[in-house]
């Protein structure tokens, strides 16, 4: 019809031309659309669109890798290795008896009864046979060819150093979730820190670097372990801390445990006594009382205190262990560890100021570090005059041993409170966190007293010639059935070196040490905790780069020692 109409209205010559025009138009249209497709195709091949439109979703898909834990020198303390875990789908197992038999034959430690029970449980589609098996075991089971038994690759946390620093590092459960120590910190409070270590591009993670030095950690552990055996103590502990940065270079609590073992039901003895336990630290706390008296200006190095008679407060009588029965100067009160003298110093300051000072140095609050196991201090319910006086010489209130060391470290480092840390920290970072708690002059006096106490006081056995050690001992009687026991005590030593500019603070604790023939029947700190500290310092000072300096007196002593050694040897 259309053709006919066109024929009617158009002349014959122009009809051909019209048809050609139409073809041309079609050609242009086609080539235009093909061109558009080609351009689009080219664009897609040259610039492929990158997949995730929603970055948040993508971040959740890849699990955050667990960082390794390394010490301050880069020694690996905890790392992940690849292992296989065997599982079974009971519905797919055809011959249950044969499966159980061959599985227990290849893995003798599997209990056939328990395994059968697990596999027979109705409605289960997934059962772990054994987690974290060795590659050989995995291949052996795989080669059995039991239908429904397979394996998945998993990551296992290992601690190459074994027991060393187990309390600080902590451990993870079978699903590599942190349960204790730094491992728990990485999952919980430290999650932000952990996230900051991850490198999403390579889906790896930078290691978490601790302040700890494994060499020092070992020296402390080794010497404390020897002391625990020698003095038949129930437990022991040692800490080494950098006074300027608050870094904890070593912390050993004995008895310890092996974080690599599968069964980690720790007995109460195996807990970390240095942070998760609180103790009445005894005479080492006198250092705090002295600093308080100096800082309030109620006592100077030349003040004198009458210790001739016991101090009576209410029904309580305060007496001295190393009784002198004379008027003592302040340094003498310190070196003789006089309870009476210290109590009188606290009385001069007054209860209110005493409590205020204890709060200022941080002995009344729970010390919180990266290691989550931290105990709250045990404080008197009511700060009476008697409570204040007993607190002055370290009784009637209990704190974490780490807390005690940290406070003493703050008192002698120039008077700046620096929160202790298990993570590596620079001096600049520490300075930002620091705040003043006592005057520099007070700190100067404390250094003098600490050094004097080693030169001629209760801590004389700590004097490692050349390293200028200073320290204070404490022998706290333990409370047994509500009474202070005469036999059971806690021997402690808090010291620092080199005393002219204290850089390292050290704490040693022995729980219920016994007297030995060598100690002439004494079980006080001066005879056990102090020599232990001295041995530790002798071992770690060269590692820490402390240059020994000898006075003329030291040289004379050294010569005598050498002569004595020649005679014996």
């Amino acid at each position: 019809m259309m053709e006919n109409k066109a024929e009617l209205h158009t002349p014959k010559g122009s009809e051909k031309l019209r048809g050609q025009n139409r073809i041309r138009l079609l050609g242009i249209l086609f080539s235009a659309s093909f061109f558009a497709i080609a351009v689009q195709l080219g664009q897609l091949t040259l610039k492929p669109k990158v997949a995730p439109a929603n970055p948040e979703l993508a971040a959740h898909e890849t699990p955050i890798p667990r960082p390794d834990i390394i010490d301050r020198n880069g020694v690996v303390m905890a790392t992940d290795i690849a292992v296989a875990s065997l599982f079974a789908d009971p519905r797919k197992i055809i011959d249950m008896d044969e499966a159980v038999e061959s599985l227990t034959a290849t893995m003798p430690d599997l209990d056939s009864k328990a395994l059968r029970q697990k596999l027979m449980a109705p409605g289960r589609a997934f059962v772990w046979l054994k987690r974290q098996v060795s590659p050989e075991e995995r291949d052996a089971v795989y080669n059995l060819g039991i239908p429904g038994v397979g394996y998945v690759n998993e990551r296992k946390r290992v601690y190459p150093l074994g027991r060393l620093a187990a309390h600080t590092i902590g451990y993870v459960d079978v699903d590599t979730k942190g349960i204790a120590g730094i491992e728990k910190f990485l999952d919980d409070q430290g999650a932000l820190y952990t996230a900051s270590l991850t490198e999403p591009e390579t889906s790896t993670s930078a290691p978490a670097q601790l302040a700890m030095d494994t060499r020092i950690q070992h020296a402390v552990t080794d010497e404390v372990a020897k002391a625990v055996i020698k003095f038949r103590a129930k437990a022991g502990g040692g800490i080494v801390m950098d006074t300027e940065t608050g870094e904890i270079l070593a912390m050993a609590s004995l008895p310890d445990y092996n974080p690599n073992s599968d069964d980690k039901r720790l007995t109460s003895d195996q807990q970390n006594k240095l942070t998760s336990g609180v103790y009445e630290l005894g005479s080492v706390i006198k250092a705090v009382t002295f600093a308080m008296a100096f800082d309030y200006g109620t006592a100077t190095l030349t003040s004198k205190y009458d210790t001739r008679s016991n101090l009576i407060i209410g029904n309580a009588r305060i007496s001295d262990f190393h009784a002198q029965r004379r008027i003592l100067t302040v340094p003498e009160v310190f070196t003789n560890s006089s309870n009476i003298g210290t109590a009188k110093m606290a009385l001069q300051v007054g209860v209110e100021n005493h409590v205020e000072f204890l709060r200022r140095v941080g002995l009344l609050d729970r010390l919180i570090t990266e290691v989550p196991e931290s105990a709250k201090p045990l404080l008197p319910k009511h700060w009476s005059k008697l409570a204040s006086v007993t607190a002055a010489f370290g009784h009637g209130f209990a704190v974490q041993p780490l807390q005690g060391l940290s406070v003493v470290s703050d008192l002698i480092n120039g008077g700046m409170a620096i929160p202790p840390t298990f993570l590596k920290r620079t001096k600049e970072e520490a300075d930002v966190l620091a705040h003043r708690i006592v005057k520099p002059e007070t700190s100067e006096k404390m250094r003098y007293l600490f050094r004097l106490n080693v030169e001629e006081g209760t801590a004389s056995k700590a004097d490692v010639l050349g390293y200028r050690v200073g320290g204070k001992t404490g022998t706290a009687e333990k409370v047994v059935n509500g009474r202070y026991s005469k036999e059971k005590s806690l021997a402690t030593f808090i010291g620092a070196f080199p005393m002219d500019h204290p850089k390292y603070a050290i704490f040693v604790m022995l729980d219920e040490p016994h007297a030995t023939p060598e100690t002439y029947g004494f079980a006080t700190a001066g005879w056990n905790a102090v020599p232990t500290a001295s041995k530790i310092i002798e071992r770690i000072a060269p590692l820490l780069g402390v240059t020994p300096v000898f006075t003329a007196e030291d040289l004379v002593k050294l010569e005598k020692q050498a002569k004595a050694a020649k005679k014996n040897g």
Partner: protein
Amino acid sequence: MVKVFNALLVMGLLVSAFFLYSLEHSTRGLERQIAKMKTGVSNQRESIKLLNAEWSSLTRPERLQKLAEDRLKLKAITASQIVSVADLSSKIPDHPVVKLDDQGTDPIGDILAKMQ
């Protein structure tokens, strides 16, 4: 004219198709290579980790101490054995006598001079 043009287009099509497929083929090859290398890298990383852990376990201080006590006749260092560079010259033992003139050079002395 149109025939020639068409023939050229067909030729072009064949050439570009061949080019495209060879390109894609080599791309696939490279992709396989990348994947292989990636698994290789992650395997190597894994073994580095394992070796690091092993190294750490073998050099743990507890083990070294035991080995040193069993095999070596060394004692722990004492403070009096540490001497500063400045005091070193006064600590030279009398025997055996050091004859610098015979030696001609003094390598240790040179190092000390450099340090000071």
